[in-house]
């Protein structure tokens, strides 16, 4: 079974999203703030006449919020709503070697909530991150 992964860098680590969850890779600039929204929501951005909710992934896992004016982001649609997930950089699209495996131990710290398994690609192990969990943000985990 071939399984494509999108490798991105986030908070100093290389992580993987399942490419099936990702619609596009874009550069985001000119984010309009959404006051009152949870802290990991950076605001709104327009993409081809669609309004994307911009998620700061670093903030979503409790790391420092990025401040660069133009940032890489991946676009994902969850429950009909389009989101742009800001990451530190988009590295590559790779093919997974085998199915994702369950994590051997409980992750600690910032990755605990969003990691859903590990997957091997190009001879390295990558953390497979759940897009929906990033979007839900820290508050959802506390409520759960």
């Amino acid at each position, binding site marked *: 079974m071939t399984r494509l992964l999108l490798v991105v860098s986030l908070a100093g680590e290389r992580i993987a999203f399942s490419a099936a969850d990702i619609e596009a890779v874009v550069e985001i600039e*000119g984010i309009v*703030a959404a*006051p*009152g929204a949870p802290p990991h*929501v950076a605001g*709104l951005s327009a993409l081809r006449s669609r309004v994307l909710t911009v998620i700061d992934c670093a903030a979503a896992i409790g790391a420092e919020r990025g401040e660069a004016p133009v940032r890489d982001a991946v676009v994902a649609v969850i429950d009909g709503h389009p989101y742009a997930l800001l990451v530190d950089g988009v590295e590559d699209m790779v093919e997974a070697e085998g199915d994702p495996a369950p994590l051997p131990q409980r992750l600690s710290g910032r990755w605990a909530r969003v990691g859903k398994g590990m997957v091997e690609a190009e001879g390295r192990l990558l953390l497979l991150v759940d897009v929906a969990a990033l979007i839900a*943000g820290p508050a959802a985990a506390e409520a759960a």
Partner: protein
Amino acid sequence: MDELLTEFIAETREMLEALSGGLVAWEAAPHDRARLDEIFRFVHTVKGNSGFFDLPRIRALSHAAEDALAAVRDGRRKADAALVSAVLAIIDRLDELVEQASGGQGSTEDDDERLILALSEESREQMVAAPSAAPKAATHTIRLPVELLDRMMSGVSDLVLARNELARRLRESGAGVDLAACFDRVSMSIADLRDAVTRTRMQRIDSLFAPLPRMVRDLAAETGKEVALSIDGGDVELDREMIEMLRDPLTHIIRNAVDHGIERPEDRRRSGKRVPGCLAVCARQAGNQILIEISDDGRGIDTEALVARAVATGAVRADRAARLGAAERAALIFEPGLSTAPEVTVLSGRGVGMDVVRANIERIGGLIDVASRKGEGTALTLRVPLTLTIIPALTLSAAGQTFAIPRSAIDEIVRTRGGAVALERVGGAVIARIRGRRTPVVSLRGLIGAQLSSDEADQHLLVLKLPGGRTYALAVDEVHDHEELVVKPASPAIMSAGLYAGTTLADDGRPLLLLDPSAIAARAALSEHVEETDTATVVPDAEATPALQALLFRGIDGGSRMVALGAVDRIEEVATDEVAASAGCLHVTLGDRILPLEGCAAPPSDGRVKLLLLTDGTVEIGYAVQEAVDIVTVPATLFGGEGEIAGVALVGGEQVELLDLHCLFARHFAATAPAEARPSCLLDGADPFLDTILRPVLEGAGYHVLRPGDAGADSAGFLIRLADADGEEPVHGKARIIRLRSHPEPAGAEDDSIHRYDREALLRALAGPRRHRGRKQA
């Protein structure tokens, strides 16, 4: 699902809907042969069609009903109340079964046998047909998948947004005239497309009203009342989605009217009313709103009991209750948990009150009002926008960020700089006193976590209406513009802020957040008790008339003027060559109408001109402006004024003239001076076409139509005659001659006549000479 079965279900639903009114009529007159035939045809068709599918229950029921009705048709049997009830019960069951077959939920009892038995002549059992099931989620016919229409609509919405962005880029790039003209054409086609697609989603409101006769009949039977229902305006069209959203509220209102409004027959007789209670449902379109009025002539709302309840439950403080006006008292029925029904009846005691009805109406951007007179009846008026997806909004900003807010929520806009407002501070909270009325102020800066404005003296206060007539003022830094916005639902992460109703894109392509006035009130934890009428300054009755709202604009000559907002229908932009001088006045062509044009002395020269379309409810005039500036409250004091200026007032420190609408309209539509004020047009010839067909068109377009020999015929601005009529051309001073031919094609290159049914060309010729325009005016 099998395609044929889908077809069968859709067709049966359609027939059921169409039959709904007929059933009740048949019950009133069981011997009406036409009705009988109609119902017979229905059961016959259903029986025939159901034979193709594995639907034994539908087949058995329709067969039994067909047999019984056939006997009546042949004169072997008389149609009596028992038969009618039995047939109605069967039709209800068929309805349920069809729903079930379509995969909808809902269980049906399986006592079909009993229903069939009730049909037999021996059965003397007086059965009352089960009340028709609550409206099903998908009663509308689906021949074209509705999702497809929705997809088209969202596609067109995207197109509109993309166009707006393209427009902005074109402006920035300073593209040439050619490109701009080309873009205009695209832009206009998109506008046409949007109109067309919007219309495909429109449904006649009939589909909302069709189940009412049956429902009212069942309700009346259950409560032992007599009700005469009248329905009007079923041909008004409304967005499909909107119709579905109105179903539940309307059902609830009708139930209430029959259950609580209309009295029992004996009570009605005692109070000297006609025994059958009147229940009227009426729909009509007013601008881009639909009004639905539901009125009855029943006992009305017992406002005293209502106020007493409200005070008892703590919804309203006693001292405030004492000061409520009649309308405010009646509006208490929308408060949660208040009902004056002495007993909870089967029908209405379902724990769903008028508060839920109001919430549902407001969720779709509508408003609900109640008017009631004790002993005389109650009227509820629903006002809803035509469609859910495109809403008129106002853009505003605070702390450098722009937001939008639905225009329907805005009561008025005042500036803190003007003298009309005084801000008071109580323990950190800010309260504005606007014309003697205290209103809590919520600062948008505060809500969005920005630093509070250092200059409170120059802010705009948007007075927003809340459910139940409460208001609060939202303080913002700037008020910008009116825009029609395509609103999309916001993601849950954004909605969790509790401030927004959705997202949209502004003309400049940037995302905009649409503020939700109710949510903001909830966030700010506004208490109802904050709003108090300041008894010291209030003048009880004069206060009931709200201050006049006016549109502030810059005239063609650069002067600041304002005009009563109520008279402004909309703002249009037209090419200046649509403006022409005739008969001493300026006129503008708008679509296929010609309107008098005010606001400028000579036709404006450059490109395009903005028009305020002013209406008095019947007729319209155009008023040329440079730009619309703001919505303001007209100060109470006006100075001087003459002719079309009612007076001059200080608005924001500037002298602003207020237009005298009466003078403007009187100039063009006064009965005493029609011939002078309107361009006149002489019809020459005896052909009946002139009088019967042409004349109404000309009069409709605002022309004063004359025949030879009429006073003023000699000075008519135009002469219209038929090109192929015999006789020499009479000479008529300065009149321009327009010749109409009956053949669609011109006789030759020299032929400058117009085909008699080319309305556009005719009106164009009347409006004045101009170059040929290849594109259609949107």
